[in-house]
Each structure stands twice: as structure tokens, then as C-alpha cells.
């Protein structure tokens, strides 16, 4: 080889630092498998005598694009490393949201006929946000309605986690992609192999969903709740377990009987616990697992305190009394803290302090390793401990204080990531709120500062409802297309916990 040719080869290699073809290929494979999920609403559509081709077409398009990308990936030389992982995870979720929106677009449903609207609804589905641009849910076809609920259920435990659990060997480095998708700073391994951990998480998730469906079906059939038909029972269960928030009724869960609301509230509270802890509790019969977990304990305490505060406010303001006040307070607090977004009344009109408390808990979120959104309790716990350490080290500069979680010292690197996450999360939230507020001015949408803040927090935290017209009984439909796009991206960033997406925006990621 001549020196010139050698030099050209050297010069030609070092442009892109990641294996782009490999990453796209893996994304394609994941998308192709995911497209099979369109078969379920197809069957439902056939059953209800509704048009089924939108689902088949959406599946075919997604499958085709997926297979095309997968072909591209065959040119990739090596295996997917942790650097490519960020791109794969982010891109997969973006494409999944688009795929979820396709049936809305292809059907002749007027409320979701705009591409942005369909994308927003699809993203809101997979990210388990529960914000909707639909104004009249009752007018949707049953099959479309079910697809909305199903997309939340699929997104709840994670697409990659699902792929790891069921697909034959993926060319995945394993742990890292799992980590960037599963919420929380650290992954709680349940088995030696990532694959078995993923499987167990999904099996538990499926099991709990089935229990909830059965409970709701019984409530409906026995006649405890006349309003709850089997479709509502299944649909509600599919968006309760992933802490999603899409409802099968215009008035969210308001029309259902108290017993239904209690059951849903209980399962929301349960789904807000780390699934690894739930697995130890229910599958390994380790009854003290929840009590031993510091995060779960704090979750319980916060949920209880929040509910009591809201209850006191409700009684004080004479809005509700007795058992009804208890139910309203517990349901609404749980729904917002876990990032579900169900409502059993339009709580926006509640006393300020109670709404503030619930919005505050919205920023806390539920536990890591659960389908909740937001910051997660464990991060708040760690940040508090980091601050306490800083204060002590101000007085004793030489003091060495490892920060512990459940008795185990947490690595300094994890702590830095937690701090970075919190800063990035708040930054993203502020930028989002500002963009929404500014855009509302230009597009003549009636959106105050409070409402833009609530919309940004509600979408970034994967909670769902905001305030004002986007409140729990309302819809995001009045927003401009630009705002909807911003919020869809906020949901995406929020679901993947900011870092995997933001790292793609740095030059260093793409360079060698």
C-alpha cells in the first residue's frame, strides 16, 4: 500500500465515533418486532366490526421501515457498545411514538387527523404520560381506544426491557441500554442475566395487570359498578399498571363507582413501588422487602402525608366530607404523585394549598424501577444526603462520608449522575415552560404562566393533565402545533430520563 493510500485510509476512518449502521440496524430490528403489536387492535377492530386496515397498514409500514433499517445494520462490523446504546434507545422510542400515531392518522378519526396530533397522542401513549389532544374520547372507535390504552401498557415496563425479555439474542451490550431505559439511577438486578431480570419484571407486570383486570371485571359483573363494562375494565387496567392515565371516558374515572376508584387507587399506589422490590415481595414472598427499602418507606410516608394534607384541606373547605373526602384525597394525590393523571373530579378548583401539594408531589414522582415519571423519590433522597454531607464537610473538610442507600455505599459517579439529572431535569422543565408560554403568546392560545408551567411539568414528568384547558377533564387540543411538538419531545426526554437524549446533542458523542 502506498503511503498516500494509507494516509487516506487513516483520514477516512475517524469521522464518526459511533457505529451508526449498527445502531440503526438494531433500532430497526426493535421496531420491526414492535410492529407486531398492531395485530391486537386489528383483532379487536374485527371483533367490533370497525375498520381494521389502519392497524394492519401501520404495522406493515413500521415493520417495513424496521426491516429496512435492520438490513442496513448488517453492514455494521461489530457489536453494539454502550455508546451506540443511547442512540438506539432514544431513536427507538421516537420511532415507537410515530408508529403508535400511525393508526390514528390512517383511520378516519377527525380528532387525530393532524400528523402532529397523532404523534403527540402516540408519544403520550408510549411514554405513559396520558396527556391527550382528543376532546371527545367517547366518540373514538373501540379499536382506536384500545390501541391508546395498549400503547401505554407496552410503554410502561419499557420497549427495550420487553425486547430483552422476549427476543432471541439481540446484539446488545446488555446492561447499559437496560439502564438508560429503566427509570432510576441504578438498576436492581433480579437475576444473574439481564435477560432474566427483564423477563421477571415483565412477568410480574403482566401478572399484576391480570389481577387488576380480574378485579375490575368482577366489580363490573357482580354489579358493584353498573357503569363499568368489560371494555372499560380492561382499558382502565391497561393504563393503570403503567401509571399512564389515558381513560376510556371523557370524564376520566369520575363516572365509575367508589369501589372501582379505590381499586384503581390501590394499584396505582402499588405500581409506584420499585418492581424489583415488588418482585421480592410477591414472587419470593419476602414480606419485609418493602419495609426494608428506604425508597419504598419514604414513598409510603410522602403519599400518606400528601393525602392527609389534601384531605384536611378538602374538609376544611367543605368540599367533601368523611369517606368521600378520604377517597378523593387519596385517589388524586396518588394519581399525581405516581404520574398517572387519572381524575375522579376536576381537582383544579380545589383549595390552592392542596393543588400545590399535589403538584409538588408531581415533581417528587414515585419510586425508581416503577413506570412512574418525574425525578423519582430515590434521587430526592440522594440529593438530600449529598446536601447533608456538603454541610458537614463545610465544618469538617477532611471528613470522608460515603453516602448510603439501604446500607450500601453509593458510588460517587452515580451521585454525580443524580445531581446532573436533577439540574438537567429542572433546566429542561424551565426551557419547556418558557417555549410554551412564548408560543402561546404568538398563537393566541389562552395560556397563563401557571398553565405553561403545569403543561411543561405534566408532560416532562409523564404525568398527563396540566391546569386550565389542559386540566384533568380537558384536552391539549387547543395548543398550537409547535407547542404540541415541544410537549411531545418533553415526554420523550422525560421518559428516557433526560441524559440519553441530551447526550446525543453533544458533539463529543458523535466524534471519536
Amino acid at each position, binding site marked *: 500500500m502506498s503511503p498516500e493510500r494509507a494516509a487516506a485510509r487513516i483520514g477516512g476512518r475517524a469521522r464518526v465515533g459511533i457505529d451508526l449502521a449498527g445502531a440503526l440496524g438494531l433500532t430497526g430490528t426493535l421496531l420491526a418486532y414492535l410492529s407486531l403489536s398492531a395485530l391486537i387492535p386489528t383483532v379487536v377492530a374485527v371483533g367490533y366490526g370497525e375498520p381494521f386496515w389502519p392497524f394492519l397498514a401501520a404495522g406493515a409500514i413500521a415493520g417495513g421501515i424496521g426491516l429496512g433499517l435492520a438490513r442496513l445494520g448488517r453492514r455494521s462490523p461489530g457489536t453494539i457498545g454502550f455508546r451506540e446504546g443511547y442512540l438506539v434507545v432514544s431513536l427507538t422510542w421516537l420511532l415507537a411514538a410515530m408508529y403508535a400515531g400511525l393508526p390514528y392518522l390512517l383511520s378516519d378519526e377527525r380528532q387525530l387527523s393532524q400528523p402532529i396530533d397523532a404523534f403527540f397522542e402516540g408519544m403520550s401513549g408510549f411514554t405513559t404520560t396520558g396527556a391527550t389532544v382528543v376532546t371527545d374520547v367517547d366518540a373514538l372507535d373501540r379499536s382506536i381506544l384500545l390501541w391508546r390504552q395498549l400503547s401505554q401498557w407496552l410503554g410502561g415496563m419499557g420497549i427495550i426491557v420487553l425486547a430483552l425479555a422476549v427476543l432471541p439474542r439481540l446484539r446488545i451490550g446488555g446492561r447499559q441500554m437496560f439502564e438508560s431505559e429503566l427509570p432510576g439511577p441504578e438498576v436492581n438486578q433480579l437475576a444473574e442475566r439481564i435477560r432474566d431480570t427483564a423477563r421477571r419484571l415483565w412477568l410480574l407486570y403482566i401478572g399484576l395487570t391480570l389481577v387488576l383486570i380480574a378485579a375490575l371485571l368482577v366489580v363490573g359483573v357482580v354489579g358493584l359498578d353498573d357503569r363499568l363494562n368489560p371494555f372499560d375494565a380492561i382499558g382502565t387496567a391497561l393504563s393503570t399498571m403503567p401509571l399512564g392515565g389515558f381513560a376510556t371516558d371523557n370524564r376520566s374515572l369520575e363516572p365509575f363507582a367508589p369501589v372501582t376508584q379505590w381499586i384503581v387507587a390501590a394499584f396505582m399506589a402499588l405500581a409506584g413501588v420499585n418492581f424489583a422490590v415488588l418482585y421480592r415481595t410477591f414472587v419470593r414472598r419476602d414480606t419485609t422487602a418493602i419495609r426494608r427499602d428506604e425508597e419504598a418507606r419514604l414513598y409510603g410516608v410522602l403519599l400518606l402525608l400528601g393525602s392527609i394534607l389534601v384531605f384536611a384541606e378538602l374538609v376544611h373547605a367543605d368540599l367533601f366530607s368523611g369517606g368521600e373526602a378520604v377517597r378523593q384525597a387519596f385517589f388524586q394525590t396518588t394519581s399525581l404523585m405516581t404520574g398517572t393523571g387519572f381524575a375522579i373530579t376536576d381537582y383544579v378548583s380545589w383549595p390552592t394549598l392542596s393543588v400545590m401539594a399535589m403538584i409538588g408531589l408531581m415533581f417528587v414522582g414515585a419510586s425508581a424501577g416503577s413506570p412512574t415519571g418525574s425525578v423519582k423519590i430515590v434521587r430526592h433522597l440522594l440529593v438530600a444526603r449529598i446536601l447533608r454531607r456538603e454541610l458537614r464537610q463545610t465544618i469538617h473538610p477532611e471528613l470522608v462520608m*460515603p453516602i448510603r442507600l439501604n446500607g450500601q455505599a453509593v458510588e460517587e459517579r452515580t451521585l454525580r449522575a443524580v445531581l446532573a439529572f436533577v439540574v438537567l431535569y429542572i433546566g429542561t422543565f424551565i426551557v419547556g415552560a418558557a417555549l410554551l408560554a412564548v408560543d402561546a403568546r404568538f398563537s393566541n392560545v389562552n395560556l397563563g404562566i401557571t398553565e405553561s408551567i403545569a403543561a411543561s411539568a405534566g408532560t416532562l414528568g409523564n404525568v398527563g393533565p396540566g391546569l386550565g384547558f389542559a386540566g384533568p377533564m380537558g384536552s391539549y387540543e387547543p395548543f398550537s402545533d409547535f407547542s404540541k411538538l415541544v410537549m411531545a419531545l418533553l415526554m420523550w426526554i422525560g421518559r428516557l430520563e433526560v441524559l440519553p437524549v441530551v447526550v446525543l446533542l453533544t458533539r463529543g458523542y458523535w466524534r471519536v
Partner: protein
Amino acid sequence: MKIIVVGAGQVGSTIVEALHGEHDLTVIDTVRERLEPLAYRYDIVTIEANGASRRAIQQAGTSAADLFIACTSRDEVNLVACSFARAEAPRATIVIRTSNVEYIDLWREGRLDVDFAVSSELETARAVARSIGMPSARQTDVFADGQVEIVEFEIPVGADRAVVGHPLREARIPEDSRVLARIRGSSLTLPGGADTLAEGDRIVVIGSPSAARTWGALLAPGQGRVEDVVVFGGGQVGAAIARTLSEQGIGVRLIEPRLERAREVAEQLPECRVYNATGIDADFIERERIGRAQAAVFAIREDAMNHYAATLARVHGVQFTIAVVHDTISTDVYELSGVDVTVNPRGVTAEEIVRFAHDPRTQQVAMLEGNRYEVLDITTKPTSEYVGLRFREMPIRGALIGAIVRDGKALFPRSDEVLQAGDRVIVFTERSRVPDVEKVL
């Protein structure tokens, strides 16, 4: 008695010095320079070989040995030597020296086939604890997720009159605890209400962790509680000292110059405050008020550093200093410059092994897991004849129920408590009665 000693370092030679007259000794070491002085001074056999070699073990006549001591400074060599020795002489008593607390735990669990394990670090820590005025809790065993502790104490001179000198039924025994055994000289008794405890006894106490701490305080002679001890150096020895002290409820501050090690120690010992500092930084010592500490322990690896740091600490007002000796000669240097107590890890290890060699039986009794006594953890069957009986009605058959665990909670039964089916009982009993106890429960 025929004794084989592997390792002729400081520990080995101290053992030889103590035992040479009355026993037949064979010493194995790889270094001739260490063997020769011993061979010239004492009437013993020396073998220049690797203790981890099977041939050397056989050549030393291990199959006829009564006692086999592996006390080189390397754990691995000691472990291998002991396992060969066990193969050669299944009936011999085997003693291992280890610096790793993990091996000690392994031995306590009965998974290490030796009769006695000694750790220089642990022995040093105990010696330090004793000199600070705490009774040495010789061994702590934990049951029922830490709710029940079995601790062996030495009753020091000046122990609290609340428990010493009165018949047990009149003594003010801390709540949630009882005395399982009293060892006086070489005899062990399961004490009844009429027995008394005396200074110099060793006792085995079962109780809740807080009761165990109360016992510790009762047995501490004289002055009030020690609350603040500073340990310089966070190596193996320093960490062991810090752990032993904080297990006895003493507040420990530890100073370690290497950041990585400081972090490790801080992770292992949540109760200690760990500083990353050199310990000879006057500014730091002033700022952290090291001078206010009730005692300072110097466990830095280099004796010269210990010496300087101890002097500096005294300059800053520390009243009581204890220094660890690595080189025998340092003892004199320390003492000349005013260090109050010196502890030689190799010396205390050798002492402990020698004590064992003199009378293996009592030692084993004290260690609980030896030949004569055992602690059992049994769940009572519904068919047991004891179920439904009050504790005072139970016939005594050389066994004592120290604690019961009911619904996950530990109880320390009074005499009118009734045993229920499904209770987990923790029983202290003679080994020969183990089958009986298992049968009746």
C-alpha cells in the same frame, strides 16, 4: 505433647520461647536465618521448608502431633498448611493465625476445619479496648437478624457491684438478658439464681443488643463512659481497632492518609467518622479538636510515624495514648517519649496461641463452638412436651433457653413465660445433650 509450629517469625518464636521446655517442638520455616537462632537457643527440631508443602508437613511428623500451629504472616500458607495437617493427623488440635476477619467468621460458622483461629488484628484491637478500660467482649455471636447477641465478657477488676458479688437472683441483671455460663478457671457452670459472679470470671451472656451494651457499661471499671477515641491509621489493624471500639458503643474518629482506603473504611464502619488526613498536620489536629479526645490510638504502619504523631497529639493535649508496635525495639522508644500503652500485635497473638496450647479445653468452651457446648437455634414442634410449659417448670437437663423468637420478634423469657409451638428457641447446651434437646423440642 508434640507440637508443630509453621512460621518462625515474631509470633512463631514467641510461641517457641513459651513452650519449649515442657513440649517437643518442631518448627518449619523457609528462611534459615530465622530458624538458626531458635535452634541454637532451644532444644527443638527445625526444618527449612515451605509450610505449604505436603512433604514438609509429613517430614515434620505431623501424623503423631497433638498440636499443630500455623502462624506465618501469610494467610494462604497457613490455610494450606492446616489443611495438609488435618489430612495427616485427623485428631490433632489445629490452630491457625490469620489477618483476615472473614476467615475468623468462617471458622465460627464451623466451615473451617481448625480448632482455633487467631487474628493478630482482632487480638490487637481487644488489647487496645482493654487498655481503654472497656471489658473485652471476647466474642459476639448474632442470632435472629441481629436481635439476639451472645457475648462473652471478662469481668475486670472494679466491675459494677450491681452484677458482681451478689447471687444472680439478687443482682441487677440488665433487662432482656441472662447469664448463660460462667467460666471460672477451667470449670464451666450453667449458673442458677444462687451463683455469684466474681472478678476474673468469664461469662457468656445472651441478650438484646442494647442489653449487651448495658453489660459492657456495667463491666467497665471506674470512670465514666469513653465517648471519643481517635484512631490514627486505617489499615487492617486500625480498622479492626475502630470496629471493636465502636461495637462497644465508643465514638470513634479515624484518620487515614490514603483517600481510597479512607473511603473503604468509611464504607465498612458506618458508625465511625473517617477523615482523610495525615495525622501529623498540626492545623488539622487543631481544627478538629483532636486534643479533646479521651484517648488516641496510633496504628499507622510505620513506627516512626506513630511515634511522631503520638508526640504531636500529646502536644495538642491528648491525655492517653496507645501505640501499636511493629518492631520490638519501638516499645522502648514509645515508652521513653511518654506513650502510655504499647501493644505488639505479634506478641498478643503469640500469647493467645500459647494460652490455648496450655489448656485447649477451657478455651474451646469459651469459644462456644468447640467440643463441649453448643448454641442451638431450633423451632419448636407442636408435639414437643415442653410446649405449654412455663419456663420455670421445665426440668433442667444441662440446657438453658436463652431467648425465643416469636413472630419475628426476639423475647428474653421470664420464668413464668409459656413456650408456644412454632417459637424459635436459642438454646445453650452441652454437646452431648444436643440430640436430647433436639428431640424434646
